[in-house]
């Protein structure tokens, strides 16, 4: 058996697309400014309701003909992120060999949106309008498209654990390298807005009437978004590192989180143990912070228990870009990566937590980041991002300077 190497791995390159923009610079500018105008009103996604969504408006690449059977918006979002790391990936493929480069992409919608359109366009005989609908709907299609674009020939798969998918894809990438299967992995998440998730969260009464308002006493649900973030994870010593990952299941309920956040707590503690770090060493925490009553209650309790008196500045970036579901874990790791990369003179500008400022007296108070707030960030600085999903799936990531 291959020996498992307990190391950290380089997050060598990043591609990102979300409602804030179609590249790293635009996304960082939006994060740094705390742009509150990126969520758009859409009346076409939920029947009878005009709600805010984090819609990607930048141009998306076309899906190559050879993998046209997986031509979906999720694939195009992933390709938009991939285009930004193409040079680094190409170099890695040359350096490591195609067979040693893997792909793990978190997705929860695959080609559902395209299948919705096919169902609406059915003929009188009930048949769908064009062939291969089942293949186009596949969850694994996005990873296949990315592998094709990269010329990667190692293991490639979709991680689909709902809202923790993007974070778990990065954890799997680390394992693929540690377990000897790959020397480089393209990993992250991609999800597109579609009627299924919009109406599904609506029927669970989980959608906010206006912009999501995480941790507020007035929070009334989440705002959905779409996007993609892909990292090139390698063994290289340079750059920022994925220092630790932690995972746990709630074993509580199919859609509701464990009320005390026990699974979330275990995931955060496991990530700290994996990175051999103490809670007080975390300089910033990117919350899951969906803005639903249940998530924020359990999450704030879990965070308070893990960090105790050493609570770091925290923010949920979902009011800026929406909840991008399976992309969220990777996208929020991307926001952490951007903040770390943009440090100046030992200070790190933090992504702000946009809300109405009405603290919920029932929840432990977290130090939520205000617009323009920064923290001391001498090297080495490390930060954490958490993601919790349907099915009780919890994942925490720690990234930062090599230590």
């Amino acid at each position, binding site marked *: 058996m291959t020996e498992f190497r307990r190391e950290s791995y380089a997050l060598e390159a990043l591609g990102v697309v979300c409602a804030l923009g179609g590249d790293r610079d635009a996304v960082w500018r939006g994060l740094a400014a705390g742009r509150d105008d990126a969520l758009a009103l859409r009346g076409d996604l939920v029947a009878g309701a005009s709600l805010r969504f984090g819609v990607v408006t930048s141009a998306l690449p076309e899906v190559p003909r050879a993998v046209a059977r997986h031509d979906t918006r999720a694939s195009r979002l992933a390709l938009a992120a991939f285009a930004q790391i193409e040079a680094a990936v190409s170099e890695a493929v040359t350096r490591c060999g195609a067979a040693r480069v893997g792909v793990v992409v978190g997705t929860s919608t695959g080609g*559902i949106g395209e299948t919705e359109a096919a169902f609406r366009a059915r003929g009188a005989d009930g048949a769908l309008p064009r062939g291969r609908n089942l293949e186009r709907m596949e969850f694994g299609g996005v990873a296949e498209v990315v592998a094709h674009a990269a010329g990667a020939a190692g293991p490639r*798969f979709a991680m*689909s654990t709902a809202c923790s998918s993007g974070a778990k894809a990065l954890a799997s990438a680390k394992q693929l390298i540690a377990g000897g299967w790959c020397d480089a992995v393209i990993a992250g998440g991609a999800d597109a807005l579609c009627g299924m998730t919009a109406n599904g969260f609506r029927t669970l009464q989980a959608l906010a009437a206006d912009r999501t308002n995480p941790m507020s006493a007035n929070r009334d649900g989440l705002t959905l978004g779409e996007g993609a973030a892909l990292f090139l994870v390698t063994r290289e010593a340079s750059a920022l590192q994925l220092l630790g990952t932690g995972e746990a*299941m709630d074993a509580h309920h199919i859609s509701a989180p464990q009320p005390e956040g026990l699974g979330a707590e275990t995931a955060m503690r496991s990530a700290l143990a994996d990175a051999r770090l103490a809670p007080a060493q975390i300089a910033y925490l990117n919350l899951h912070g969906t803005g639903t009553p249940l998530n924020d209650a359990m999450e704030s309790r879990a965070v308070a228990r893990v960090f105790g008196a050493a609570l770091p500045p925290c923010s949920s970036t979902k009011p800026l870009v929406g909840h991008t579901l399976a992309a969220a874990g990777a996208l929020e790791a991307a926001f952490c990566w951007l903040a770390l990369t943009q440090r100046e003179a030992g200070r790190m500008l933090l992504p702000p937590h946009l809300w109405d400022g009405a603290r919920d007296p029932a929840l432990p108070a977290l130090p939520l980041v205000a617009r323009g707030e920064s923290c001391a960030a001498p090297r080495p600085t490390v930060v954490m991002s958490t993601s919790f999903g349907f099915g009780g*799936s919890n994942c925490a990531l720690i990234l930062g300077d090599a230590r």
Partner: protein
Amino acid sequence: MRNVVAWTPADGATAGAPEVRFLPPLVRRRCDDLTRAMLHVANECASAEQLAACACVFASRHASLSALVELLEALAAGRALSPNTFSHSVHNAPAGVFSVWAKNRSACSSIAAGRESFASALVEAFCLLAREPERDVLLVCGDEFPLAPLTSDTDALAPTHAVALLLGASGGGTPFELSLEAGDAAREPGRTPDELAFAAWWSTGESELILDHSPRRWLLRR
């Protein structure tokens, strides 16, 4: 390898599900065929103690097609979605139901990779074994027979099925060798899903199994 269990419908039927009488009635009523088949093979594969302690990898090419088709029909007709069906339509719903039932709080993945879903789940399982050799890994892989109108155009109309493997590394070494090679298919790719081909191979005692997915293939050797 501790155990391998496969389930397919009796008498060559394409759809159906095992009874899963071990599940509480309320949970059982809410489960679709895929979740039932997956929990059935998991329950047959290992003891309650093992199922509570193992790391888990679930895999499915298409997830719960019955739940997805119900939701797609409702969306097309402008009807409200069922909250229960939506909750059970996510790819990791069987993994979620399993963890609640088995009281398992370990890491649990839910993987899809087209025709290579089973092989990809094996890779993930082998990584978990390498990371934590003292903890067994439960791998459950399955799919549902597609409902109309999705039946018309698929290239792989396999019956509803599920396969569970309990993998252990104690004593050193993985239960078999697994490698990925470049290579065109030696024959037409079969319509039997890899996980069912694997279960058949494991029971025969043959030394080698090739899972052809031109232009590459997975080689299993014991």
